[in-house]
């Protein structure tokens, strides 16, 4: 990287220090926190895939930039799972990928109670498919 670019990035990073994504030990996260992070990740992917800024994304989502910044930087204490799902539903209107994911989520939640063996089998095949 050349010239003032690095200094510019460092300066900006220092200014926004508290708002940046904080990478910590994932093993210490609770189930609820993991769910929230998984939901936030869809917003991040959308932004990265389209190579847009958070400001542009906030406009698309019709939400304040600060709120969107909190979501894409995983400030999960500021959001409940249902609030994130509401925003994700809005994102699904813009992204077919997110829409398909929500359909999967819905289908998963509607799975009736099964035997432990069958549930484990289903979980395993889902993980294998993802891998």
């Amino acid at each position, binding site marked *: *990287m*050349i*010239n003032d*670019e*690095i*200094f510019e*990035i*460092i300066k*900006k*990073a*220092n200014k*926004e*220090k508290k708002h*940046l*994504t*904080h*990478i*910590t*030990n*994932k093993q210490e996260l609770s189930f609820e926190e993991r769910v929230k992070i998984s939901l936030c*990740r869809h917003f*991040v*992917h959308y*932004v*990265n895939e389209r*190579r847009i800024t*958070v400001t542009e994304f906030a406009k698309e989502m019709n939400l304040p930039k600060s709120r969107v910044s909190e979501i*894409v*930087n995983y400030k999960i204490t500021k959001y409940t799972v249902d609030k994130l799902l509401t925003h994700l539903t809005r994102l699904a209107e813009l992204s077919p990928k997110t829409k398909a994911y929500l359909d999967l989520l819905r289908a998963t939640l509607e799975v009736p109670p099964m035997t432990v063996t069958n549930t484990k089998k289903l979980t395993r095949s889902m993980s294998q498919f993802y891998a």
Partner: protein
Amino acid sequence: MVKIIDPGRIERIVLSRPITFNEILILKAVIEIDHINFGLDERTRKLKRRKRTNFSVKDVEAFILELDGDAIVASRYVGSQSVFTARIDCPVKGKFFTRTFMMILRHDHCIPDEIYIVTLYPSWE
């Protein structure tokens, strides 16, 4: 006149295990090790003379491995590159263990399996 910053020693490594960063499989890393350990002087645009950290390439690799499974939003885009900035807890025992560092990295879509660590500096600095 355009002044190009000399980042000092740059190391290329193959990660001890592949990681998934932003849903992309990363196998290699390029590390600006001198930039990380010395930092840049804003006035002279050169590497500082005094070390601020004493990380080895292996230590920086430990930081990179922490990114496994993560997705970070890019802070800017430069051509085919995306630049990312994140806070990261130090995983290196005996060297600022658990203290928070700032990491600036970039990923070039033309070299999808490689990650480039621009710098890593103490967030309390």
